[in-house]
C-alpha cells in the first residue's frame, strides 16, 4: 500500500525481477483513491499519478484474502515467489494467514520484508501512521526551518523513501543469503529506525555533548556564503556554497567584486560567519538581476559550488537528469502518458527498463493462467465466487 513497500518492488522490477502487485478491489490502495493528482483532475482508480509513480514495472492482480479460495490463491503466489514485501501495521498479515510463520510453511526459502512505521515489536508497534507524519517523529521536520522559526514540512512522506532504500538493501542482502544457503529470512524494518540513520551524527551529538541540533535555515557552520539567493523572475532562486577560502576568493572574482577579499569582515570563514547577514545582502544583490541558470554557469565555471533551485517543471527540463534518463515517459491506458521515475543508480551492463504501472487487476489472467497455470474456466469461477475481485 502507498509508497514504502511498493517502491522497493518497483526498483526490483526496473532491474528485471517479475514483480506482482497484489491488490484488493474492495479496499484499494489509498493512492488510487484519496491522493491527487488525477488525470484531468477527475478521480478514478486508474487515474491517479500517485499510484502510477510508485508502481511501474509490475504486473497487477486482484485478490480477496478474506475468501478461502482467495487465500489459497495467495499461497500459490507465495510458493511461486522469491520475495514477499508487505507494509501493513503488524498483525494484519497474520490475521490474513500470511504472517511469516505461515508463509514459511508454504515457501521456506522466501525473503519476507515487513516494513512499517514502528517495527514489528515494542509498545507502539500497532500505531498506524503515514510517512508525512513519521518524518516528524524521526527528527527531520524539527531540523527544517528558518532560524528561531517554526518547523517546516518536508513536502510529504520524505521518510517513506528512506525506508525504500534500506528496504531494497535488506531484500537484496536477503536474496544473496538465500542463494548461498537455500534458506529464507524475515526482515523487520521500522521506517522510524531507518530515518535515524540519516540523523545519526545529531543523535551522537546529543548523547556525548548534550546538544540538541536545531534549525539554521540554509546556513552551515563550515561555509559562508551558504544559502539560497533571489534571482530574476517570479520566485526564482539559486544556491551558493563557498566551502573554503579559495572558493570564496574565486567567487569574489567571478562576480566582479575582488575587493570583497580584502574587506576585513569577509577575510576568513570566521569573519564571514560573524558578518553573514551583511554578506548575504551583498551576494543577494549580485544574484538578483541574474537568472538562476546564469548564476550557476558563472560560478561553476569559476569552480564555485552553485545551483538552481529547480521547480517541478525544471526537473523535467534539467539537461543532466534528461541525460541520465531519470524520467521515462510511457503510454498508459487511462493517463495517456506518464513520466515514470528511475532508480538513482545507473548500471553499465544491465540498465533499467521500466514498464507502465498496472491498471487494477490488469494482469489477472496473465498471472493466474500463464504463470500459475490455472485454466481459463478456473479463473472465471474464482472471479464468480469472489476470490478474485
Amino acid at each position: 500500500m502507498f509508497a514504502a513497500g511498493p517502491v522497493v518492488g518497483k526498483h526490483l522490477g526496473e532491474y528485471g525481477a517479475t514483480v506482482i502487485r497484489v491488490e484488493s478491489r474492495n479496499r484499494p490502495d489509498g493512492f488510487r483513491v484519496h491522493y491527487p493528482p488525477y488525470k484531468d483532475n477527475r478521480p478514478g482508480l486508474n487515474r491517479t499519478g500517485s499510484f502510477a509513480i510508485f508502481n511501474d514495472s509490475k504486473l497487477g492482480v486482484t485478490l480477496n484474502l478474506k475468501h478461502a479460495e482467495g487465500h489459497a490463491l495467495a499461497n500459490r503466489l507465495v510458493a511461486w515467489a522469491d520475495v514477499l514485501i508487505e507494509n501493513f501495521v503488524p498483525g494484519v498479515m497474520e490475521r490474513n494467514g500470511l504472517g511469516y510463520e505461515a508463509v514459511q510453511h508454504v515457501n521456506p526459502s522466501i525473503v519476507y520484508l515487513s516494513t512499517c512505521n514502528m517495527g514489528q515489536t515494542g509498545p507502539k508497534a500497532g500505531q498506524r501512521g503515514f510517512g508525512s507524519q513519521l518524518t516528524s517523529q524521526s527528527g527531520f521536520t524539527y531540523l527544517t526551518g528558518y532560524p528561531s522559526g517554526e518547523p517546516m514540512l518536508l513536502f510529504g512522506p520524505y521518510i517513506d523513501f528512506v525506508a525504500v532504500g534500506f528496504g531494497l538493501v535488506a531484500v537484496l542482502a536477503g536474496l544473496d543469503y538465500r542463494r548461498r544457503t537455500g534458506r529464507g529470512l524475515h526482515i523487520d524494518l521500522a521506517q522510524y529506525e531507518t530515518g535515524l540513520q540519516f540523523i545519526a551524527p545529531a543523535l551522537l551529538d546529543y548523547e556525548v555533548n548534550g546538544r540538541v541540533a536545531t534549525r539554521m535555515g540554509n546556513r552551515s557552520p563550515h561555509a559562508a556564503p551558504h544559502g539560497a539567493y533571489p534571482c530574476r523572475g517570479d520566485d526564482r532562486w539559486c544556491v551558493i556554497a563557498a566551502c573554503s577560502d579559495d572558493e570564496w576568493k574565486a567567487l569574489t572574482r567571478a562576480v566582479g567584486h575582488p575587493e570583497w577579499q580584502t574587506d576585513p569582515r569577509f577575510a576568513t570563514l570566521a569573519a564571514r560567519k560573524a558578518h553573514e547577514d551583511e554578506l548575504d545582502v551583498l551576494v543577494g544583490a549580485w544574484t538578483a538581476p541574474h537568472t538562476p541558470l546564469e548564476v550557476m554557469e558563472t560560478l561553476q565555471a569559476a569552480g564555485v559550488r552553485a545551483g538552481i533551485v529547480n521547480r517541478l517543471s525544471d526537473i523535467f527540463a534539467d539537461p543532466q537528469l534528461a541525460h541520465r534518463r531519470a524520467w521515462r515517459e510511457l503510454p498508459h491506458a487511462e493517463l495517456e502518458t506518464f513520466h515514470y521515475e528511475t532508480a538513482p543508480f545507473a548500471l553499465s551492463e544491465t540498465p533499467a527498463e521500466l514498464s507502465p504501472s498496472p491498471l487494477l487487476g490488469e494482469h489477472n489472467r496473465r498471472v493466474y493462467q500463464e504463470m500459475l497455470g490455472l485454466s481459463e474456466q478456473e479463473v472465471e469461477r474464482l472471479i464468480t465466487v469472489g476470490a478474485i475481485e
Partner: protein
Amino acid sequence: MADETRRLADSGAPAPGGGGILAPYRVLDLTDRTGWLCGRILGDVGADVVKVEPPGGDPGRRLGSFYRDDPDPAKNLAWFAYNANKRGVTLSLEAAGGTALLRRLTQRADMLIESYPPGFLEACGLGYTALRDINPRLVVTSITPFGQTGPYAHYRGSDLVAMAMSGLMSLVGESGRPPLRVSLPQAAMWAGMYAAGGTLVAHHHAQVTGHGQHVDISTQASLLWALANAPAHWSLLREDLHRAGNAMVGRTITGARMRAIYRCRDGHINFIIYGGEAGRRSNEAMVRWMTESGGAPDSLRQKDWGPFNVATATQEEIEAIEGPFAAFLEKCTKAEFALESVKRGVLGYPVADAQDIREDPQLAARGSWQRVEHAELDATLTYPGPFAKFSAAACTIRRRAPGIGEHNDEIYRDELGLSRRAMQALRQEGVI
C-alpha cells in the same frame, strides 16, 4: 599470488564481517563523506568493509561535531556514525606505490565504492576498465554530485546544491521566503543509501553471471525520490506545486491547503487530517478525545467522517475542522500526544528533536540503541543501531569506526604478506 587472488568467500578464514548475512564479501570503500553511508550499510549487513583513507586521514573527519567538542580528527561524530563496521587503512593514490597496493587489494574485493570527481581514478590508472581487467567480477560504484557523464558531470556539488537541483527545496519553506534545505546535511545520506542498493543489484548480477559492472550514482537523482509523488503533479497536470510552510500542498483537487504542523505546549505536533478508512478512525478518535477533555464543538462531534474526502475538500471545509484541532493541540504536550495518539489510534506524531527520540520508549523496547565501546576514548557510546532486524543473522554494530591507518598491519602485512621492510618503505614514501 595465487593466495592473493583467492576470494575471501573461498579462503576459509574467519570472516571479519562477523557472521552478518553478507559476511563472505569484501568491499573497498574509497568514498569521502559524500558516500560514507554506503559502506556503513554494507558493513551493517555483514560485508567486510575496508575504508581506504589518504595518509593523514579523510578530510571529512574535520567537519561537524566532535566527541566532547574536541576538534580532533579521531573524535569526529559523523565519522563515528558512518564508518562503524569498517576496518581502516591509509593509502595515497598520488603515489605509484599506492596505486599498486590498491590493485592488489582490488584482486581480493567483490565491490569497490568511490566518490572522486569523474575522471580522477582514470587519471590514476584505476578507472573502471582498469579495475575490471584486474578483477572481472568486481562491482565498482561511483558516487558523484550529478553522475559520471552529462552536461553537469563536472560541476561541483554540495549538500545545498543537491537539495536545490533535485527540486526538493522549491517545495520546502514559506511562500515568499527563501526555499529551505534540512539543517543537517542529507544529500550524502540519500546518495549513500541508494549506492548501497545499486551496488547490491549489480552484486546479484555478478554472483549469478560472474560479471561485474559499473554503478553510477547521482546525488541529485537520489534526492529526486525525496519529492515523493510531487513529480506526478507536473507529469499529469503540468502543475508546479508551491511551498507552503507547515501546510501540505497537492492533497486536494480544489487547491486547498492543509495544516500539518501544529503548535503545542512544549513544541509542535504533526497532525494531518486524512480521509479513507484510516482517516475516519483517526478523526473520530481525535474528536472523542477532545470531547472527553471538554473541547469538541458540535460541528466536529456531528461530522460524518465516512464520506469525508480530503481530495475534494474545500479550503473552507478544512479550516472549519482545523480551527478546533489547533485550539485543542495547543494545550497538549508532545509527550501527552505521543501517549494518547498510540492509545486512541490518532494519526500523528510529535515533532521530535534528538532528546525526544533518545527518550522514546518504543526505541528502548526494540533495542534500537547500541552501546559501542571506544577503548581509545575510555568510553562506551550509545549509537542508533543498524537499520533493520534480520531473522537469519545479526545486523549490528560489530566494530567502531577505525582510527587513521588502524588496520594497516592487519591488512597489508598479515593479509597481503608485505614484509616489515616493505611496510617501512611505503611509510617513508608517504604511501601509507
